[in-house]
């Protein structure tokens, strides 16, 4: 019996299975003398790495440092009793992840398995069994949202709405975090910390950077020379500057350049840093959107002007919607990059997750546990970035072949 034309037997005897495996290994690992050497070398290295990691993991590693400091790592010194400001944003992000994924396509088995595995590794350590009770409903909701959205997206009539809903959802959820930190007395910016600080800075920056970046992209493609040149200069200057320098500038010198009305030059450091991130990211968003604008065939503009559309009508109804849609994957990529680079706020002395992790090794009980806590932080970032990047690849695939790419 063969499956889909492949000469593979489904009901193989163990002997046959072994033969198949040997055959596969001959082809993919040991096809030539060179390959034999490479494979053997890599296998040796891999074995050695796996062995030393396992030995460290089971004999030396002590994850107590993460468990004892999980609050510090997640929210820093955020005041007790104010957590209600955090949960809605976290919940909506988790649920949105599920929904977006469902609406834009099926999650591949490898990705799902990786996420579940990583989640199983990270969550119990981080949340403890008590904290798991709070996170579990969100996860359950996310799975539910995934299946619901997936089901809805099967019907072509609703698919568009489900997808629009997901994008609108992201645009609503990101400001939510910032707004909740301000209402009803608010929480001092000096008390924001941990992973939540990374998240807040990243969302604040993307909210500021999107309109600015779109404006810059329009300016760069404008027929007005002055506009074009100044936008180009802005983008190139930002792309040429190291982010740490930008952040230090925001820290030490930005206040000298802010207008004094409304106490704007007295803005807290977190906001100044967020402004710096937004100004910086805008340049990269402008490039992404410009790419999207350039991918729109000339004929559309000509047709629009033949119809008598004014510039702003052309932009708002014809070019910009397509440009932004085409550049959605690139924009998602920018957001992932932004989220990871927010760890650089360490340069200005703010205590984000990474710095909180470094500070835990100060505690006498957990002295010398840098490896554990850094691995943990890296893994947490990794899971987030991995999930988001797969999602953006999914968007890319769903958008490919659609709209304007066929000229």
């Amino acid at each position, binding site marked *: 019996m063969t499956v889909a034309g492949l000469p593979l037997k489904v009901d193989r005897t163990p002997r046959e299975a072994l033969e198949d495996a040997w055959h596969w290994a001959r082809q993919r690992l040991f096809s030539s003398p060179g390959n034999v050497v490479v494979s053997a070398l890599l296998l040796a290295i891999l074995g050695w790495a796996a062995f030393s990691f396992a030995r460290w993991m089971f004999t030396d590693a002590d994850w107590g440092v993460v468990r004892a400091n999980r609050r510090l790592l997640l929210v820093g*010194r955020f005041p*007790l009793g104010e957590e209600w400001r955090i949960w809605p944003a976290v919940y909506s992000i988790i649920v949105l992840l599920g929904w977006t994924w469902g609406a834009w396509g099926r999650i591949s088995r490898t990705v799902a398995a990786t996420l579940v595995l990583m989640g199983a590794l990270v969550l119990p350590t981080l949340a403890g069994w008590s904290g798991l009770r709070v996170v579990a409903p969100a996860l359950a909701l996310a799975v539910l949202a995934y299946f619901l959205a997936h089901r809805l997206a099967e019907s072509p*009539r609703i698919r*568009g*709405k489900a*997808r*629009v809903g997901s*994008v*609108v959802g992201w*645009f*609503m959820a990101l*400001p939510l975090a*910032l*707004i909740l930190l*301000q*209402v009803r007395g*608010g929480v*001092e*910016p*000096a008390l924001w910390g941990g992973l939540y600080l990374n998240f807040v800075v990243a969302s*604040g920056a993307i*909210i500021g950077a999107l*309109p600015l970046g779109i404006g810059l992209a329009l300016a760069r493609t404008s027929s007005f020379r002055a506009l074009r040149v100044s936008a180009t200069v802005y983008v190139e200057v930002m792309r040429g500057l190291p982010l740490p320098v930008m952040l230090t500038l925001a*820290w*030490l*010198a930005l*206040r*000298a350049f802010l207008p*004094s009305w*409304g*106490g*704007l*030059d*007295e*803005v*807290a*450091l977190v*906001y100044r840093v967020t402004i710096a991130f937004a100004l910086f990211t805008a340049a990269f968003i402008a490039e992404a959107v410009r790419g999207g604008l350039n991918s729109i065939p000339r004929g559309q503009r000509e047709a629009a002007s033949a119809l008598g559309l004014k510039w702003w009508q052309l932009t708002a*109804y014809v070019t*910009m*919607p*397509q440009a*932004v*849609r085409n550049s959605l994957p690139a924009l998602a990529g920018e957001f992932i990059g932004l989220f990871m680079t927010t760890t650089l706020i360490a340069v*200005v*002395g703010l*205590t984000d997750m990474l*710095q909180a992790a*470094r*500070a835990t*090794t*100060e505690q*006498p009980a957990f*002295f*010398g546990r*840098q490896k554990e806590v850094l691995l943990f932080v890296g893994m947490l970032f990794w899971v987030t970035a991995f999930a988001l990047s797969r999602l953006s690849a999914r968007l890319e695939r769903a958008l490919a072949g659609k709209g304007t790419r066929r000229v």
Partner: protein
Amino acid sequence: MWYLSHRGSAKGRWLARFTRLAAAAILYALVGVALVACSASDGGEGADATPPPGTTTPAPAPDAPTGATTLAEVRARGFVRVGVNDQLPGFGYIRPDGSFGGFDVDFGHALAAAIFADRDAVQFVSLSASSRFEALRAREIDVLIRNTTWTLTRDTALGLTFAVPTFYDGQGVMVRAEDGIQTLADLDGAVVCALSGTTTQLNQEDTFGGTSVRYQPLTFDRNETLQEAFVAGRCDAWTADRSQLAARREAYPANAGGGDSLVILPDTLSKEPLAPATRGDDRQWADLVNWVVLGMIAAEELGVHSGNVSELATVPPSQEVSRLLGSTAEGSAFDAGLGLAPDFMRHVIAQVGNYGEVYERNITPLGIPRAGSPNALWTEGGLMYAPPYR
């Protein structure tokens, strides 16, 4: 958002687009308003009084009438904001329950007790060595009590005003006992680690610069990295204020050899008077901070402590104690003119203690003896001396 919809009648589409566009606009407006509103409340008044950061603009003239609002601001807010260290055992650190403790922190509690008669009407902001002055100037804090050395240029160029030192310190050098380093001269060729943004970094150059001792400086931006590096053997010597070194030595992890494996060299590289700092534009506030500290020193000298303060306030043994505690036992209370209730020191002593008690509670456990050091009372040969309380 709107650009993703492809379906629907031509009529409905325009309307739908408009609504979504409007919704998005409102959303962004909301975020903008929230940001601005918050930033405005964040800074408070007196925006024109602070010099721009990172500049050498001289401090405002001492008689500038502007900015004398810190006390009013604090009162309106309901608590004092104090910038402290969060990683220095003994002086400022975070307890496992998230609260702050330490010598510097207790002076923050004392300020709260003086203003609000409540030692907990205070919020501590942890600051790094290199961000502390900026935070003070940006009005993110009201007073900086973070093992900060009082120097001339910090007083002038940075536009700060320092209160009386709470602790007289000096820069020392700590080495591993097993390395057999006895004097500074033995450090020839050694790697000496320090924190950036501190006077330490400049002192070591002052000390070694003129001698034949060639050392290799290594400067870290955070204490925990320095400690990691020192424990790993990256540095031969660790230079910092002696009190800090003592604290580090005390808290030195047992699995790295414990405190006994370290020696602090007898040489003192510099004078480091640690004092609370306020912005230079507000004399009233500076006086208040100064006299709360002095009051605690005076209380120790007069034998007033948290155990006997309520008793002494009702039956003051002398005129001086009566003035210090603002007791009304003999007619009207002495008004210190600081804009505080006359009995503010009574709350400070009752809730926080006098200088000796604060020292005893925080510094003695670090193993830094007080007797014979500059931190003893002047009556015992030290430098702790409060001007007359009248």
